């Protein structure tokens, strides 16, 4: 068996004097969809930000395909094949849809490949093709989310990290985005997913981790977690 693609071990991170993560450990294997579920403030977003080097890590290790990400800056992590679609979408409001996508391909120099991937993105999310020349700020929340995912894909990542892709989005768009994530995974993209909507996330995941107050406390296959009594009570809203 191949070693895992992403290995996060005992990661500690602080916001000033406050410790936000006290030891997060998880693994993502190539080809998997792995979800990170947990309450608000449990440290899901912080974990992703540690991996993409937007945050400093006080202790622990993060390795991607054997390479130490903690030695790298955010831009180098992208070059390794890790893309991060951040919480709150964070698209460029005054760049056009097309320019947003071009920025996603910033580190690439294969013009033909970039053009092909741009077409692929517009097939995956046809609305982006229609809105190509519009400024990012003029898109609806759901469209911006699609743009954020498509933009992350433009770097041709092997690992795609999605933070709350369903936040603030109409259910119909949510279904479309989840379908797109499954489709991408079939095409070979490994996915690390952070979701508020734990049920939907775990259903489509191979495995999942539960994060509680800055610590990974449980892990298992998507089905195992979905049927676990504690998870059901705490995160799936099935109170007793």
């Amino acid at each position, binding site marked *: 068996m191949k070693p895992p693609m992403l290995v996060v071990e005992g990661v500690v991170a602080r916001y000033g004097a406050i410790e936000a993560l006290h030891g997060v450990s998880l693994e993502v294997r190539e080809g998997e969809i792995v979800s990170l579920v947990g309450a608000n403030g449990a440290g899901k977003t912080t974990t992703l930000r540690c991996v993409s080097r937007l945050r400093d890590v006080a202790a622990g290790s993060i390795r991607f395909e054997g390479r130490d990400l903690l030695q790298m800056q955010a*831009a180098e992590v992208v070059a390794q094949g890790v*893309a991060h679609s*951040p919480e709150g979408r964070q698209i*460029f409001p*005054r*760049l056009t849809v097309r320019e947003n996508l071009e*920025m996603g391909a*910033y*580190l690439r120099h294969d013009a033909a490949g970039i053009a092909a991937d741009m077409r692929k993105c517009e097939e995956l999310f046809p609305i982006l093709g229609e809105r190509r020349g519009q400024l990012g700020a003029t898109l609806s929340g759901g469209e911006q989310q699609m743009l954020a995912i498509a933009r992350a894909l433009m*770097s041709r990542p092997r690992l795609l990290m999605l933070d709350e892709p369903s936040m603030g989005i109409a259910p119909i768009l949510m279904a479309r985005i989840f379908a797109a994530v499954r489709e991408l995974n079939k095409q070979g993209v490994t996915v690390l997913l952070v979701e508020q909507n734990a049920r939907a996330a775990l259903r489509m995941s191979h495995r999942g981790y539960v994060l509680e107050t800055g610590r990974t406390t449980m892990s298992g296959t998507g089905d195992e977690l979905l049927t676990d009594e504690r998870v059901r009570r705490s995160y799936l809203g099935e109170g007793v």
Partner: protein
Amino acid sequence: MTDAEVFLQQLITGLSNGMIIALIAIGYTMVYGIVELINFAHGDLFMLGSFLALTIVGALGLESWSGMGSVAAVLILIASSACFCGTLNWTVDRLAYRPLRRAPKLSLLVAAIGASFVLMNLGLFWGGLPLDVFSGGIAAAAPKDFPDLFPDLNVLGNSAVQITRTDVGVFAVTIPLMIGLTLLVKMTKLGKAMRAVAQNPTAAALMGISVDRVIGATFFIGGALAGAASVMYALYNNSIGFQMGYRAGMDAFTAAVLGGIGSLPGAMLGGIGIGLIRAMSDQYVESKWTNAIVFGVLILVLIFRPSGILGAKQREKV
């Protein structure tokens, strides 16, 4: 001169000065757009550009180059001052501002004021060097004569309204630079990266954009434009001094705010606007009122459009 001719003459003078102010204003607006810093050292950087130009005039004996030679001389000066000021601005960012990237904006502002003093004193020291062009450096603080490389011939022949060769030079330099810069920011990968970093540095880093490198490039470009402007200013006014950065910087900063700080076309528009207001006020009011009128217009515009004429409304959805 008839009334119409006087007006036309002031229009030309105002445009020439305005274009130079605009070039400086672009440096303020680009840096503000990307790191939210009013770079107080920018005017002093501009001053140093003209000191370098005068030093080169002396070293190469550019005064005696005539005809096409004088055009070549000006091009040499622009290229060297642009490279020098670009590199210097990049260096100031690298040494003074970059370590403060995550610090409160006020710390950055204080650093910029400090950098301004350092550069201004560098100019004072430079003016005291024992060179012929600095009159032997006896009076370091005294204004220095900048030779008229383009003797003030009227390209319109004998008409009362004058467009001098220096005016033509100013337009021939500033207009292509502004068009080039606009294309760079709109079309090129670097330009798009600059806009991306300005709009959302975190997301830009997630795209693999090396944010510090893009900010450095912005400082270089803004500095280079100030360098080019310094040569045109020196040719136009025939006098430079170590304190000229304050006044020129003030005009340019006002222009950037008037046009909408952070906006490139705004800086150009604001610069030309300030140049014209100055020229018209000098002619039709009285030159001692000119500063009051410039700032009066600024205040008036800001009352009705707080983010400047072309400024983006500060209403970002997250």
